[in-house]
């Protein structure tokens, strides 16, 4: 107890913090927690990436050569889980922790102690998940979507560990989301009205609402899997009166909003970066807010487009097809707004802008393949092929991950007070950009030709393309070590000192505080005019 009291006491003093590991374990400071989240996400990105390397090494040639099929299945499953729940979502939460209080002029997050909790339970969730790989029989091998009966009847006992780790990840995200909502509702600086909030704050607010709406449904789904498997219930067991198709409905009721949880904050980031480097205010601010809201609302009525081949009646397939296509309207509004922001702007191509531009082009490409998948009759052909893999990697890697990298480059000088190594950054960008397309673009072709996903072997005619894909994969993996080197240099505070504003076109409260951002900021709230 005394440490807690001491800690509170310490927090009252400016820039005074416990040293060593205790600083990080006990911290309630939004910047420390943001940093923890971001490093955790990056480590998970490397671990999940290593699993992708195993997958690509196995698929380098047809036939089975490196791993056995069961281990291959564990790799695809855990790669997906780690990248979704361990890399992308914590990275966005880390950015929210760092930037939301700075952007709305708040001294910290509203619930700092819960903030500490929501981070520190995460490593345990992933420790449980990763350790299950080393148990007898192996870890989860049913795909990150854990469809019943694969996860109930045909799974091994480590499913219990999978279920508990997902429960912990969910609890962490929910606490993080509640914190973001309370901070944005109650701690905005005087004059920071709703329609003056930066778009990153807006998109995160809407994301946080999506999180508290659907993460509990995921918790329910894994709980049903747990009781079906170990306690004799029959939610998804036809013999006992259940229905395995119902699992897919419940899962995707969570799963589709989850997709937007991983992309809405990216829209916010791009909407911050593009105006800065175009030296023009964002085109269509309010339409951006409304577009984000409508994407969030539509995300609740499109889930069954993941299930077109389950034998739904025609009217349901038509409904979900048209509802899905409707989402491209607000998404199109966003893309056109970004383009219009750049129109006749004085554009300069610093690395954050390069990543943002790559995002706009490649995310749109992923959106188009999504539109193709939305067309029910052709989805029967594309379903469960590499075309789907290509689609969601374009929106998640060149979409969400590129936006996170753009955000890190954009705000890193503010965090450290030093400009990052621009040569390394450019190398990182160009290597990533080229290799990511070598990696994912040919997947469209093998997918259209019928190569199924999640299978460790394939027909001979796909061999050439798969070699290209694997080479692209290895190159993309190696490119991330450039990023790691750059980040380590930045943490050692190497580089040119930067001004408070960092970028000459930057606007917003976060650029009015000194660089590097002091440990405590906005203890007296700024006034927004």
């Amino acid at each position, binding site marked *: 107890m005394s440490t807690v009291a001491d800690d509170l006491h310490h927090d009252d003093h400016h820039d005074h913090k416990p040293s060593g590991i205790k600083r990080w374990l006990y911290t309630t400071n939004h910047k420390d927690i943001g940093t923890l989240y971001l490093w955790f996400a990056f480590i998970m990105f490397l671990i999940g990436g290593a699993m992708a390397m195993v997958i690509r090494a196995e698929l380098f040639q047809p036939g089975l050569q490196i791993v056995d099929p069961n281990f291959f299945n564990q790799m695809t499953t855990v790669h997906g889980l780690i990248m979704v729940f361990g890399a992308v979502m914590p990275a966005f939460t880390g950015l929210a922790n760092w930037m939301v209080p700075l952007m709305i002029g708040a001294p910290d997050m509203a619930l700092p102690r819960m903030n500490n909790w929501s981070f520190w339970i995460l490593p345990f969730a992933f420790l449980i998940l990763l350790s299950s790989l080393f148990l007898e029989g192996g870890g989860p091998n049913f795909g990150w979507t854990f469809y019943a009966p694969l996860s109930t009847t045909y799974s091994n006992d480590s499913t219990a560990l999978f279920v508990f780790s997902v429960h912990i990840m969910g609890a962490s995200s929910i606490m993080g989301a509640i914190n973001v*909502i309370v901070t944005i*509702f*109650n701690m905005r600086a005087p004059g920071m009205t709703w329609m003056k909030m930066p778009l990153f704050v807006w998109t995160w607010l809407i994301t946080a609402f999506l999180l*508290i709406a659907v993460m*509990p449904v*995921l*918790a*329910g789904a894994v709980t049903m899997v747990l009781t079906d498997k170990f306690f004799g219930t029959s939610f998804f067991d036809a013999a006992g009166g259940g229905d395995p198709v*119902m699992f897919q409905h419940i899962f995707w009721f969570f799963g589709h909003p989850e997709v937007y949880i991983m992309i809405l904050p990216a829209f916010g980031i791009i909407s911050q970066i593009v105006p800065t480097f175009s030296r023009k205010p964002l085109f269509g601010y309010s339409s951006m807010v409304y577009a984000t809201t409508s994407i969030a609302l539509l995300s609740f009525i499109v889930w069954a487009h993941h299930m077109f081949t389950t034998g739904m009646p025609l009217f349901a397939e038509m409904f979900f097809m048209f509802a899905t296509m409707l989402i491209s309207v607000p998404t199109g509004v966003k893309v056109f707004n970004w383009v219009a922001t750049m129109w006749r702007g004085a554009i300069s191509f610093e690395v954050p802008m390069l990543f943002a531009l790559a995002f706009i082009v490649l995310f749109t490409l992923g959106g188009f393949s999504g539109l193709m998948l939305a067309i029910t009759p052709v989805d029967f052909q594309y379903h469960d092929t590499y075309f789907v893999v290509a689609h969601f990697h374009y929106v998640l890697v060149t979409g969400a991950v590129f936006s996170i990298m753009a955000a890190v480059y954009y705000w890193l000088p503010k965090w450290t007070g030093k400009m990052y190594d621009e040569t390394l950054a450019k190398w990182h960008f160009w290597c990533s950009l080229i290799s990511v397309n070598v990696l994912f673009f040919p997947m469209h072709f093998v997918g259209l030709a019928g190569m199924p996903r999640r299978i460790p072997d394939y027909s001979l005619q796909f061999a050439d393309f798969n070699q290209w894909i694997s080479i692209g994969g290895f190159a993309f993996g190696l490119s991330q070590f450039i990023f790691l080197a750059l980040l380590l240099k930045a943490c050692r505070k190497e580089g040119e000192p930067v001004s408070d504003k960092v970028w000459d076109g930057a606007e917003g409260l976060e650029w009015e505080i000194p660089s590097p951002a002091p440990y405590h900021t906005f203890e007296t709230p700024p006034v927004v005019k």
Partner: protein
Amino acid sequence: MNGQTKNNKALVLRLAAIVVGMFGFGFALVPLYDVFCDITGINGKTRNTAASYDFVTVDESRLVTVEFITRTNSGMPWEFEAQTKRVKVHPGEMAQVDFYVRNPSSRDIIGQAIPSVSPGTAALYLNKTECFCFNQQPLLAGQEALMPMKFYVDPQLPEDIHFFTLSYTLYDVTATSSEVAMNNK
């Protein structure tokens, strides 16, 4: 600062209520799904209680073909076959089909048949007055049996349906069902 804490608490409580509500909603989806499918018949499930055959007028103006498919779930050793593969009936007319089962294994097994109708909308108009699928069926090692199923097609059946398939999948439920069923035999 106190006003701030109070506001935060109130908001956190409201958000926590949403979280709890949505967790409950996840489970509420289970009965909702069943109700929705019962009303619309879109998942091809037939009712698992007996229908009555009173005041049904036979519509002799048309014939409906009903086809029967049987299969056993993996790990279920029984032989399972419909004695009649297809019947042509007038809507409202009573028909009986017997299903043959044999337990060739050396252990006593309790089976449960799960029906499914395709196209799914026809499930709403299939009325079974008697069916082996209403109960679990115990069969001693080496034993065989004929299991009856009596049904009629509701005369309300939409005009465009001339043909539908009733499929039964047989599951081994020995492990999960109580021993009562076996003793009752």
